[in-house]
């Protein structure tokens, strides 16, 4: 099994903050893993350590039966010899080389013959729709074309492990959608392990077979996407995944609402520090017919649905409604909570399991 095994990885860039803090994880073979987290959480550093572009201060990294790094034995495999594919946010296409030269560079390093290079190039050219671009320079290509060249360059040497560092963030939203499906198809067709770094939770949700949410150098939760969304293990994960963000209700400050939710979830209120409600888990009903009454503050139609800002006893929260709102601004309505979208977190910001 060529799984990636990280053991007690520590990486410090000097200064007080620790980039990666005693990280241990196994990424199984053939998975499409997303490292998701805010900037500075250590996700790119983790990726670069797997690539060998950074060396951990201590810990071990294994890939299958190969040791990439071990501070126990002092082994360190050079990046050049790790046989992996890496794609940068900026693509890092060499501006002084043509598309062809860029793509066959890796094969050249392996001293492949001209025929082999041409054969592989033709395959990739077809796969990524790069016909007619052979002699162009990267600056003569559009953003989407550059990205396809970068993908082709990475895949030319048929690596069994692909590392992608926010490769979609430089694209406009249409192209991004297209590229997402391209990447997904790619993963299905070549079946290799992909580790993908992003801060965009939407990207992670749509692409990954498993998501690792990182915070302050640690993985807070690693799970299947829907599991992450439906059962966030911590307040951080709950807040980070989902858009609009989950509504957070402090059980001490937002009195009425907290009382209502603790009843609904059948949980002791003093056990809970924060409640969380997904915006789509609330339904607007007529006044006095729901769990609690509210005032409509704002209505923002997005086309597909409505984002409605409501005020419940002084606390402003957002809900998403796929039906048109039953009132207008300043109207009084009732709110019904769907229990599966309501969560409670203890004083350590960890989820309290429902019983």
């Amino acid at each position, binding site marked *: 099994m060529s799984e990636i095994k990280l053991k007690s990885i520590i990486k410090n*860039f*000097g200064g007080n903050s620790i980039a990666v803090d005693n990280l241990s994880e196994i990424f199984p073979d053939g998975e499409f893993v997303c490292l998701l987290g805010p900037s500075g959480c250590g996700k790119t550093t983790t990726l670069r350590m797997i*690539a*060998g*572009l950074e*060396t951990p201060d201590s810990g071990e990294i294994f890939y299958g039966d190969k040791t990439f790094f071990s*501070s*126990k*034995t*002092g*082994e*360190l495999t*050079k*990046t*050049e*010899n*790790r*046989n*992996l*594919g*890496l794609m*940068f946010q*900026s693509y*890092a*296409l*060499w*501006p*002084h080389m043509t598309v062809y030269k860029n793509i066959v*560079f*890796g094969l050249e*390093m*392996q001293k492949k013959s001209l025929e082999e290079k041409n054969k592989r190039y033709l395959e990739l050219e077809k796969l990524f729709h790069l016909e007619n671009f052979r002699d162009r320079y990267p600056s003569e290509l559009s953003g989407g074309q550059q990205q396809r060249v970068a993908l082709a*360059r*990475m895949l*030319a*040497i048929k690596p069994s492990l692909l590392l992608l560092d926010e490769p979609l963030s430089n694209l406009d939203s249409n192209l991004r959608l297209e590229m997402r499906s391209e990447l997904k198809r790619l993963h299905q067709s070549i079946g290799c392990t992909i580790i993908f770094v992003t801060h965009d939770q939407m990207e992670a949700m749509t692409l990954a077979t498993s998501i690792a949410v990182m915070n302050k150098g640690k993985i807070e939760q690693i799970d299947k996407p829907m599991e992450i969304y439906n059962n966030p293990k911590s307040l951080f994960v709950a807040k980070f995944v989902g858009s609009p963000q989950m509504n957070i209700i402090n059980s001490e400050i937002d009195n009425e609402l907290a009382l209502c939710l603790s009843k609904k979830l059948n949980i002791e209120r003093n056990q809970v520090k924060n409640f969380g409600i997904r915006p789509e888990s609330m339904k607007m009903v007529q006044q006095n017919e729901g769990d609690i009454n509210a005032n409509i503050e704002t209505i923002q139609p997005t086309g597909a649905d409505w984002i409605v800002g409501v005020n419940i006893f002084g606390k402003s929260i957002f809900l998403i409604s796929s039906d048109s709102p039953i009132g207008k601004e300043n109207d009084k309505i009732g709110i019904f909570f769907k229990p599966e979208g309501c969560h409670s977190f203890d004083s350590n910001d960890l989820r309290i399991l429902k019983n």
Partner: protein
Amino acid sequence: MISSNSNNQNSAIINFKIKFSKLLQQPTILIGSVLVIILSYLVIAPIVSIFSNSVSLTMMDAMLSGSKDGEFTYKYIDRVFASSVSEKIFWIPLKNSITVSFFATLIALVLGLILASLVTSTNIFGRKYLGFLLIIPYMLPSQAMATAWLTMFKNRKISGPQGMLESFGVTPPDWLAYGPLPISICMALSYFPFAFLLFSSALSKIDIQLEEVASTFGAKTKAIWSKIILPLLIPTTMSVLLLTVARTLGTFATPYILGTPAKYTLLSTSLYSSVRSNDSGVVAVIAIVLSLIGVMLLLVDIWVVRKWQRFVTVGGKGIKRQPSKLGIFRMPTTIFAWIIFLIAALGPFIVLALSTLMREPGNFSFSNFGLAYWTGVNVPGMDQPGIFTSPEVITALKNSFLIAGSASIICGMLGLLIGYAVVRLPGTLISGFLRQISFLPYLMPGLAFAAAYLSLFAVSRGPIPALYGSISLLILVMVVTYLPYASRSGISAMMQVGPEPEEAGMVLGAGFWRRITTILAPLQKSALIIAIILPFITGMKELSLVVMLVTPGTELLTTQSIRFLDFGYTQLANATILIIGVVVMISVLILNRVTKTNLASGLGG
């Protein structure tokens, strides 16, 4: 006990093993360390040596006084500041330097500001060309203006051919021909393009919206300039002021050519005569004073820039200011701008060229023109061969190309190497040290630095041989002096490329040398060419740095022109300067070709 000991040993070996494999993959640390060692010697050693020279007895003085060679002494400090000769070697030159710097800087500043405003913001005729033409004086060697002045205004006080005015029957008075007035004017004319450049760029950076807001309140052009634009230019003005003062203090050619006949000495020429009379203790003391002034000016500049940082406006939408209409002033201002160009750029060229083409100065009859001074045939009243046949000129030409050429190649590559080490080792001691030390020579005026090198390499020390009198010394001193510019541009070039292109190669299996040769070098090709041509241009016109280090046989074109002047061969000196001018112009054209930009943006040194 024993087991923990062996454990420690084990982990030390493992640590070493990791470090070693990292080093093999990325030998940047190795490159950085080698650079640190080389630069420490080339930059710090001269500075240490000059400080020690200022307080230790020379061999000659030790013999005279019966003390030991190298003994600690206040003798030289005393001689410079408080002896019977200090008036002559220090206090009067200091006063003169201050006077000349003050007037030269004032004129340069005002000219620069007025011309920059006219060219960037008004509709004077030919503004498109003036932007380029007004920078030409900056590219001429500093002695061009001075020798042109001398050729024009010299009177019978000094030997050699007649001045042009004199040959028309007008004898210029001494105050017009030599001394503070011509020195100030010539320096101002050489250095105003610097002010012009800085003001132009500051003016074009001011957000046009700031002015538009004012005009919505009813402010007229005059009010906008006095209330908004000029106050915003205060930080630039301070910078121009301080940097121009620093430059004028370090200038050697102008005071040497125009001050010597009137016995008008500045600090730079006083330092030079101390070098000529082998007074190394005094040389050290004056050089230290010059450097301290330089450091002080730089510190003030840094302080000013920081203090006025709140004046820095965040760029707007990059809309160009509409040239304001000058109305009836359009013609007079146009004439003014073009006259400045004529006097400062075209004038010297014409005067120098004419003087080499006329057998007798001032005689404009057709038969008087000829190439005598160039070919050496039929030269009236001179025992020298012409420029094309003079062995001295040919040697100097070869030397200039050899020295400026090798210095600029070494400097360019060193700059990129330093840039590589600094950028790729962020946060390390090596990176910080390299950044600081490569900037250090910037603090010392060329003259002071040359004096330091003179004292360091006059004798052999350890494995390093005595280099005085050799071409290598001249190359070395040029490399180190231009290093601040080279390393800064190297650092910014490396910053622009970033590590990704290299890392992308690494992932695909390219080793260190492979990455350097197939990825980094091609990417930095044009940066390297610029990093070589810029110091080459500066090196070709360099005088103050090399004038004390040259010996017969290692003369450069610039120093050779000074020798010709010393002997009264004005025409030969002028012709030599013209050659330098032509070489520099060609280099600038090549540079423009390579960078495809206006040179106005690129001239550093």
